[in-house]
């Protein structure tokens, strides 16, 4: 372990340290505001160490972690998401729960898991990161322990996540049994020279099954709507962004580095998963009346779109796939945070604002929040001026460029269907609130911190939607570093 390696790992270590500091601070003195400030301080420090680490990239910090610009980009995404979620949690938990400080320890360990995943280049760190992420999430989902839905959601997520981890481990074991190495790069080198068809392939499929659970891809999506609905809104925001983007970053790295693109039958499996996710996610979202459930199904569909970009890497080469996946994930994270952020901000007063009725007339009661929600939903729907459109553009271009017309058509159909349910929410907000019992949603003054966070998010969403050029260039140069 050299000094360079330590500096390269600094972002991850700072997050880990922050978790311990926050824990000790809570033990010494239980102060909500102090806890939040310490958490933010830790995250900002970790973000500030990213340039230091970038100077040393690419670098293999032990066999387990590879700190390259790809990893640092996703660590940055995970941490920035963490900052946003912390700010959203601030108002949300301020008036709930007796012991609300611990959520920030869990948040930090979740982010730690995500950061480890983004940089891991070895099955061991892969699994460690994934479990750190998932185990922290169980506790976060079930944090309001006295309520029924969160508890149910937490247990559901824990059980299914455990099953998924078992699949994952079995897959890793199969690969290790056949090839005898655990590092992705070694695996890639060996599979390029020798032909390990059956059991390695089965192993990869098992890994995909395991990750499919965590990414909520069809047919492993059954937990998604219940858990999204049950979890407190800011936690849902975290669950649907950090865990998805970090795990997908890992999946992509695994595919590129371990040479999994060379298995032809794998792209058939992935194509099935992508098509099923897009169709099932979008169609089932049509039947929902609960905003959180609609967003849950929409996230299933969105992950399907990302898988499309992943598949095209086989034809277009990994660089373009990395660029497309990275951009789409950023677009998805920004829009989803915006959408769940509005839900969280509206739920500050007490009950979760999750039924469509709770949003009726929002445009006239609180035009600011309604505009933010509309912008986020339109971004998820992929309408120009928003970052979601550029993301869709990437998915379409990769699909068209790779001549994968089945996938492209599925994306078109999915986007068309998707519009309908996003617009349903928008329409509900447009309806005049005169006829509705507005007492259902107390006109609590919208919390300042949450609103500021959302404003920044929407500014980012529009900026990247109108002027994505510079960001694209950055992703393009970054995409070449992963190989």
């Amino acid at each position, binding site marked *: *372990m050299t000094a360079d390696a330590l500096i390269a790992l600094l972002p991850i270590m700072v997050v880990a340290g922050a978790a*311990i500091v926050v*824990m*000790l601070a*809570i*033990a*010494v003195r239980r102060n909500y505001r102090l806890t939040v400030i310490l958490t933010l301080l830790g995250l900002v420090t970790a973000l500030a160490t990213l340039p230091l680490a970038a100077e040393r990239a690419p670098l293999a910090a032990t066999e387990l972690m590879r700190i390259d610009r790809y990893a640092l980009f996703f660590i940055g995404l995970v941490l920035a998401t963490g900052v946003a979620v912390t700010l959203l949690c601030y108002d949300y938990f301020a008036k709930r729960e007796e*012991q609300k400080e611990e959520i920030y320890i869990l948040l930090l360990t979740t982010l730690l898991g995500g950061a480890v995943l983004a940089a891991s280049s070895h099955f061991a760190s892969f699994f460690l990161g994934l479990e750190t992420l998932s185990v922290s999430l169980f506790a976060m989902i079930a944090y309001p322990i006295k309520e029924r839905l969160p508890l149910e959601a937490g247990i559901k997520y824990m059980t299914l996540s455990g099953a998924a981890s078992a699949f994952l481990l079995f897959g890793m074991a199969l690969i290790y049994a056949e090839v005898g190495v655990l590092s992705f790069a070694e695996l890639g080198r060996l599979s390029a020279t020798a032909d390990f068809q059956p059991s390695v392939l089965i192993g990869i499929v098992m890994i995909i099954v395991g990750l499919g659970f965590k990414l909520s891809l069809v047919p492993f999506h059954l937990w998604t709507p219940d858990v999204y609905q049950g979890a407190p809104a800011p936690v849902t925001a975290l669950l649907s962004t950090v865990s998805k983007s970090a795990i997908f970053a890992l999946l992509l790295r695994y595919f590129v580095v371990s040479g999994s693109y060379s298995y032809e039958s794998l792209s058939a499996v992935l194509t099935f998963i992508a098509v099923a996710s897009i169709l099932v996610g979008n169609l089932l979202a049509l039947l929902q009346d609960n905003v959180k459930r609609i967003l849950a199904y929409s996230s299933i569909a969105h992950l399907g779109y990302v898988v499309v970009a992943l598949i095209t890497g086989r034809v277009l080469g990994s660089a373009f796939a990395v660029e497309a996946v990275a951009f789409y994930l950023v677009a998805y994270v920004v829009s989803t945070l915006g959408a769940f952020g509005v839900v969280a901000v509206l739920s500050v007063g007490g009950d979760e604002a999750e039924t469509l009725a709770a949003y009726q007339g929002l445009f006239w009661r609180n035009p600011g929040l309604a505009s933010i929600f509309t912008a986020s939903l339109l971004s998820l729907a992929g309408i120009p001026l928003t970052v979601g459109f550029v993301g869709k553009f990437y998915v379409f271009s990769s699909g068209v460029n790779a001549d994968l017309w089945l996938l492209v058509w599925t994306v078109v159909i999915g986007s068309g269907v998707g519009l309908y349910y996003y617009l349903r929410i928008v329409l509900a907000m447009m309806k005049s609130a005169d006829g509705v019992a507005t007492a259902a949603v107390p006109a609590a003054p919208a919390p300042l911190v949450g609103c500021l966070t959302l404003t920044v998010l929407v500014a980012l969403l529009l900026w990247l939607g109108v002027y994505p050029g510079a960001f694209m260039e950055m992703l393009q140069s970054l995409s070449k570093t992963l190989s």
Partner: protein
Amino acid sequence: MAQTTALWPLIIYFAAVLVVVGVMLGLPNLLGQRSRGKATVEPFESGIVPVGDTKIRFSVQFYLIAIFFVIFDLEAVYLFAWAVAFRESGWAGFIEIVVFIFVLIAALAYLWLIGALDWRTRRQRRVESKINN
């Protein structure tokens, strides 16, 4: 192919285990005599009819203790792993294990200070603090 032949004994052994267990569990059912009395399925405890339920509610603190055991005692396993390779791992290993132990101590301090090791109920605590003052 070599692999498959090597597996044969294992498969046969596995099958044999299944057969033996099946026979051991199945035969008594067929051969043994049955009696159906009122107290047949009751546990025998020195001739006294048992009272109450077997489902006793333990204090939740027992579960906490179990979890603490998992956390702290099992983490000690890592210390063994380090101790075995003490010389090879050198100073770097030493620093790392110090960090590790520090994290464990921090966790212990946290548990102690938030009162997770305190077995009193909330009411008892309140009463006691009144007495002390």
